């Protein structure tokens, strides 16, 4: 299965940013095992990237791969919605099946 690639935009190292990162990690670990990668972009350091991706709010999570690109806003605490919105399928496991995610 294709590796999932994410971009996470945050504004500074705030509790909200930390929470979003933690939520993303937990969610991906559960759904994708370790078959994913993500980059964290701090808009205070790289505002031009936010301009290119036309990001308004932070945190913003963009799923780049597999296509089509999709994005969700907020600190990702509503995991169920994030997964369904990003169409992240529970990994058809390389090993034995792992239940009914999501």
């Amino acid at each position: 299965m294709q590796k999932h690639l994410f971009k996470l935009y945050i504004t500074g190292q705030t509790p909200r940013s930390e929470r979003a990162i933690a939520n993303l990690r937990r969610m991906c670990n559960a759904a994708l095992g370790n078959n994913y990668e993500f980059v964290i972009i701090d808009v205070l350091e790289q505002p031009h990237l936010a301009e290119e991706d036309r990001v308004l709010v932070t945190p913003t999570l963009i799923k780049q791969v597999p296509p089509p690109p999709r994005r969700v806003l907020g600190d990702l605490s509503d995991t169920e919605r994030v997964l369904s919105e990003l169409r992240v399928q529970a990994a058809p496991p390389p090993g034995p099946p792992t239940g009914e995610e999501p």
Partner: protein
Amino acid sequence: MTDSTTNGAIERLPVGIPGFDLIAHGGLPRGRTTLVAGTAGSAKTVFAAQFLSEGIVRGDEHGVFVTFEESPSDIRGNMRGFGWDIAQWEAAGQWAFVDASPRPEDEAIVTGEYDMGALLARVEHAVRTVGARRVAMDSLGAIFARLGESPIVRRELFRIVSALKKLGVTAVMTAERTQEYGEISRHGVEEFVADNVVILRNVLDDEKRRRTVEILKFRGTSHQKGEFPFTILPGAGIMILPLSAMELTQQSSDVRITSGSSELDEMCGGGFFRDSIILVSGATGTGKTLMVTQFMAGGFAAGERCLLFAFEESREQLFRNAHGWGIDFEGMERDDKLRVVCEYPEIAGLEDHLVRMKTLIQEFGPHRVAVDSLSALERVATVKGFREFVIGLTSFMKDQEMAGLFTATTPTLLGGESVTEAHISSITDSIILLRYVEMFGEMRRGVTVLKMRGSKHDKDIREFTIDASGMHIGKPFRNVVGILSGRPTHVDSGELDRVARLFAEGSSGEG
């Protein structure tokens, strides 16, 4: 109650939108954010773009345009017609877009707490990159449409406003209104950008659109109150006509000029005043256009430049008429002493007419101007708009010390007053009435000077005739009463003498 700039309280940023700085007592509060609210189609985006454009054109003040609604390429295209080459300014590093316009693929749901740190970072980045002094954000409603009506959005917008203040830029934020008169803006945007509020209106009144701008408040500083009409012109953008804000500083001149008819001059106590506005009112065919023609010819004979705005008759017709009265308009135009401008009133709104007429007057620099007729222009305006037009035109002409002759058509053949007359008679300095007089089964013409500000004048109603050499004023109608009311009645001369004696002492000039 004067400008507080001198106290160092709130500095002004001259915006450069024509007329705005006058009603704003110098400009927008510098370093602050001003809310510009208006209904759909009230020219909010044009205002926002012009705010930046004027900064670049006039003062090399760079600008950032944050767009939440239209895409940058749409804005570039839409604003090109106003002569603003945004793409070129972008290339020169004078203008930057922050593109927050919606794209379908960027649609996203909210899955937890968020802030608008990314937008703020982008705005700050753009401001620093181009060294912006001005920021425009258009329009806030679109943000609510995308993120939902939430307290977070309000809090974040407030944060952006504070950040802009820290950056020291002067900003304009636009917001939607649902109705022309009512709450300031949808979503209660004014709660967080409350210090300065400007409202743009586009009111449908009597089937005619009328655009106005009103400064609702500038916290801690002064501005003109009330609505001011504005127009949007190709190649220029918004142009505010601050009519009632103009000061009555014109000086009154004692210099007399000829009306083009020595007999009429005599009735007026020696001619019109050089910087006066004369209204000639009469039914169709009473000789208004003739008076205009003679007024022009009189100016030409005195070596003056004359400008005629005709809204009723074609050029050919006017020239033929003039020729019929022995006046050579063609020759006058050849000598560059006369210009005749013929237009249909319906081709434009009254504000546009006013701007064009002013431009033509400025270009040609006439000593005297005639408008034939104002009634034709009244057709395309609201009552208020028409009055403002006349005030705008007359004060502009008086500023330049020009004489103006306007005609008004009365709706009835006999007597009667015209609507035009009722609306503007107090604005004009002199009023001349032309009337049909029915006598012994014959139509004759009468002329009287009803008002002549600052001078004595003939109070008689005199008969006049028109022939191939123009207008000839004769004797007063001595034994007829009721001419002006349209019901001429003959009285015997005994009664007339008695009345004449009664008022023998009483005739004097009008104030």
